[in-house]
């Protein structure tokens, strides 16, 4: 009796008497919540103010941010390593130009499969060149990618001096159209009867890609390199390889964005993607990533991309002159970044705040 009661009295070792806890959910995800909140507000305004919201409007909305969202995958990874990629926009233009040139109205499938494979290979090679120069050449990312940006633009202009070329309409429909126009049967006996813009399906794919990628060893290494290159090196991380792969994936992401842009515009243009460069950096920063590297998430970037895409439409509904778009876009970026920088006041050493 005595034994059993003493057994009852002695509790199992308390595994959860934490003295050092992780920060609460809201604190950990403050930047993500901020950008998603901003996006939610803009979406609400968009849906309320738009004259109507049919599949067509949904499609326009979804497509408007898609190129940026795709390229944003690349910019996120590069920024996470502590770098920056100024050549993403020109790579979008270059792959768009290549696609519009390789296609052929008389070939089966319009030669689009060949064009797509070629675009992805070009994107990967371009990213590999950036990555090799940064990781092994030890050059600064901003200079390397500024230079390659010019090179990509030059090649794009050589391939497609004037806008034009051919993009098969089927390809455009496949990427930018509307899915589930007819009720469709899903597994487990469910049906789906609401039209969904195909861009949203692609977007879901990107998010799933991120959630899976986040759990690879490569992702951990990329975060580690950006957070503290020295500590990563001391932990046996191959720093150069992590950077090389980040830039290479960024090139592929830009190529996919170039293909989407081809589908969306149904034409080729050697300069049309160039705005993507700075907008992708803005999207990444809006999404809460640190330009110093090591902290950030594609889940933020994707919201940032759509915030940037939505601002012109929302301003349009309020009859704001397009001349002020840049002003608003810049102001929103400044406010978001300032809110995100509040944490700096926790730092005690003024030298480290600089």
């Amino acid at each position, binding site marked *: 009796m005595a034994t059993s009661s003493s057994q009852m009295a002695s509790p199992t070792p308390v*595994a959860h008497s934490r003295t050092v806890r992780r920060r609460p959910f809201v604190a950990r995800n403050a930047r993500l919540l901020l950008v998603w909140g901003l996006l939610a507000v803009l979406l609400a305004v968009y849906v309320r103010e738009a004259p109507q919201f049919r599949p067509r409007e949904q499609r326009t909305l979804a497509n408007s941010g898609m190129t940026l969202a795709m390229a944003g995958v690349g910019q996120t990874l590069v920024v996470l390593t502590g770098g920056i990629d100024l050549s993403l926009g020109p790579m979008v233009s270059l792959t768009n130009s290549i696609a519009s040139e390789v296609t052929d109205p008389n070939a089966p499938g319009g030669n689009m499969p060949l064009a797509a494979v070629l675009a992805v290979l070009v994107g990967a090679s371009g990213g590999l060149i950036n990555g090799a120069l940064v990781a092994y050449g030890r050059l600064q990312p901003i200079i390397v990618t500024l230079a390659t940006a010019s090179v990509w633009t030059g090649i794009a202009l050589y391939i497609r001096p004037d806008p034009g070329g051919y993009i098969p309409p089927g390809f455009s429909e496949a990427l930018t159209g509307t899915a589930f126009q007819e009720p469709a049967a899903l597994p487990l006996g469910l049906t789906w009867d609401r039209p969904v813009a195909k861009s949203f399906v692609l977007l879901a794919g990107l998010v799933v890609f991120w959630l899976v990628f986040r759990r690879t060893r490569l992702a951990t290494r990329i975060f580690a390199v950006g957070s503290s290159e020295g*500590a990563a090196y001391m932990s046996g991380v191959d720093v150069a390889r992590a950077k090389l792969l980040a830039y290479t994936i960024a090139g592929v992401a830009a190529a996919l964005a170039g293909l989407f842009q081809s589908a969306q515009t149904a034409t080729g243009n050697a300069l049309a993607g160039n705005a993507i460069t700075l907008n992708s950096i803005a999207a990444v920063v809006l999404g809460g990533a640190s330009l110093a590297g090591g902290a950030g998430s594609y889940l933020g970037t994707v919201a940032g991309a759509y915030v940037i895409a939505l601002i012109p439409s929302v301003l349009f509904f309020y009859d704001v002159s397009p001349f002020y778009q840049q002003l608003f876009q810049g102001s929103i970026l400044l406010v978001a970044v300032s809110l995100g920088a509040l944490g700096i006041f926790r730092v005690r050493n003024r030298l480290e705040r600089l």
Partner: protein
Amino acid sequence: MPLLEATGIEKRFGGVVALHAAGFACAAGEIHALLGENGAGKSTMVKVLCGVHQPDAGVVALRDRAVAFRHPSEAAAVGIVPVFQELSLIPDLSVAQNLLIGVEPRTRLGLVDGRRMVRQAETLLADLGFGGIDPRAVVRDLPLAERQIVEIAKAVGREPNVLILDEATSALTQRQVGQVFSVVRRLRDEGVAIVFISHRMEEVRALCDKATVFRDGTDVGTVEVRAASNAEIVQMMIGRALREVYPPRPPLPQPPEPLLEVRELSLGGSLRGISLTLHAGEILGLSGLEGQGQGDLLLSLFGVYTGVAGQVRLRGERISLGSPRAAMAAGLALVPEDRKTQGLILPLPVGENITLATLDKVSHQGIVSSAAEARATGVMRDQLAIRTAGMEVPVRFLSGGNQQKVAIAKWLLTRAKVYLLYDPTRGIDVGAKQEIYALMRSLAEQGCGVLFFSTDLTEIVGLCDRALVMYEGGIARELTGASLTEANLVQAAVGVADSVPDPVLTVPVA
């Protein structure tokens, strides 16, 4: 047979010899301390052992087989795992990710198995007696002590043959140290060879079987810790001849005039209630092993930190610690630790570096007058004997000693009353050192006060009127006159209080 043995290790950095014919051996199941002053070569030795540095000559042998590592991961692969004071944790990753980086558990699909990773990390931490740390917490949010524990856990989790602890317990509380020690003893009993570096002599006594003493880059002897007295060990650590390169010390003006009075200065965990008085005409040394708060004290006085508690008076007037600008205006000058990043602007010409802190004195209405600049810099060049091909030469082309003179000249022009010097002679040649010593003395003779942090004990003994020994963020000991000796400095620096410490706030030197 020793498990790990280093023999005849040579290592030079530029012209500086860090290790010369150095070595020691550690057997399996032994805890071996490395002892020595700052710059004696302990840390360089450890970095050679674990592949951070490659020796210029000499052999590292593991189980009697010579090994050479190009990268820390190669040393880790054969079981030599270090824990450094400068942390090797990645701030933005979680505790679990840090503990298992490179050996993450994976699912069948090859993805990192987050849940299993957290469980493994949890087990590892609990096994070491630190189950209170949430493996999902981000390292950046951890207090310093817990980061150090994670660092130790990371090393132990690699199941090392040789575990190297380089000041790995410096931020821990006594209880945490006790827990870490019991883990270390358990590893020893399992046959791990442990190399232990600490600035706390009591820790060495409590934990270590043997100790090898380093001095001037070479090993000068190995002792059984239990059989050796503190006095013997301290005697082995010092023993350099005092070079006669220091200017004579004139008596302080009487009565002594307090210039800078610091009362109860505290900063987070790194400074604890520092009180000191610096007198006009005095060179006051700050000593102790590196990282005991000396640097933070100087930086706090110069307004670099926020959250500093306490009072500072200059000639009786309270001064603000709000920013370096405010400190300058009050009459303070700081020659910082790293002259290449904080002291100088390397690509700028010598002249512009010298006038950077006093631009308003050499300019009229915002335009820098080149005549005034030339006059000011010319005076400094002559006074400090700065050797340069010209004032327009970028300062990075100057030798280390002349660079340091430029960094000091910048502050002389401000006509500061108090000079805070952060190890100003580190890495410069003997001739330039002597010139800087003479300059410090002449500043003192002009009635300025010099607060001088040096990692070189002979400088403190040879140059200073008085010295404060810092230990773990506080002032452990004040030494003046005949008691200002290397032996006393070392004793106080390693936390050995053989004699009763003098009261910290003492009367000025007689």
